[in-house]
């Protein structure tokens, strides 16, 4: 039958829940990047996705769960050309409930080079539609990653 009145777009997703801990972040990323969802992305897009997700997760482990332990839930949805990423944690809220700026600090001499603070800069540089909100006592961070054309 030639009826194509409802071109329903099914989308694939992948999800993992990890304890807030640097080794668990590593294993959780490995588990996600082993799924067919992420194996289907071009190599450089996989790389970008891993950087952004790792930075977001490391920040949560370090800052949101600075005082207590808990879980992090990561959901990736492939929507057309975008990988929609949502990260939920039950840790401390973001200071002032707003996203850090993440500016790159330029330094002239080696002895003053920053050894940190690259995290949010990388997330902002590599993602789109970055959004943070507090929902039901949890932090929800979401952003989109382009999965097709190399932008960087």
């Amino acid at each position, binding site marked *: 039958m030639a009826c194509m009145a409802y071109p329903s777009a099914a989308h694939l997703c992948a999800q993992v829940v990890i304890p807030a801990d*640097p*080794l668990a*972040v*590593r294993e959780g990323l490995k588990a996600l990047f082993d799924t067919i969802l992420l194996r289907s992305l071009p*190599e*450089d897009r996989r*790389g*970008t996705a*891993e*950087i952004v997700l*790792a*930075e977001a997760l*490391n920040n949560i*482990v*370090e800052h949101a769960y600075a005082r207590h332990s808990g879980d992090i839930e990561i959901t990736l949805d492939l929507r057309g050309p975008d990988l929609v990423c949502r990260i939920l944690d039950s840790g401390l809220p973001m200071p002032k409930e707003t996203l850090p700026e993440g500016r*790159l600090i*330029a330094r002239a001499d*080696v*002895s003053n*080079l*920053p*050894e*940190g*603070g*690259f*995290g949010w*800069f*990388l997330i902002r*540089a*590599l993602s789109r539609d970055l959004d943070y909100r507090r929902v039901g006592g949890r932090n929800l961070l979401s952003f989109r990653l382009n999965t097709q054309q190399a932008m*960087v």
Partner: protein
Amino acid sequence: MRLVAEQNGEILVVRAMEDRIDAACAIQFKDRMREITQDNCPRVVLDMARVAFLDSSGLGAVVAVMKALAPDRRLELSGLTANVQKVFRLTRMDSVFVIHAEVPDGLRHAG
């Protein structure tokens, strides 16, 4: 954190044997590098050809190692993989380090 060091004249080549330098091992990496570079070798080349992934904690650790060697000694890098290169480029750290495509000439046999 496995690091394999090999002295070659005035250059010390340190090969990172792990596929990730990330938040889970950045401190370990910094500590091991400090131990390895205690002898006074003027040039230190960190070969990252096996490192497929570096996050900002890993980058911070590499910067910290460079600062610990300065001002008398230099940290050079070699063999940056595509994704590691991206992190260096985006954070402008590619202009701070001397980056070789491969381990500098005359040292390649040191593998």
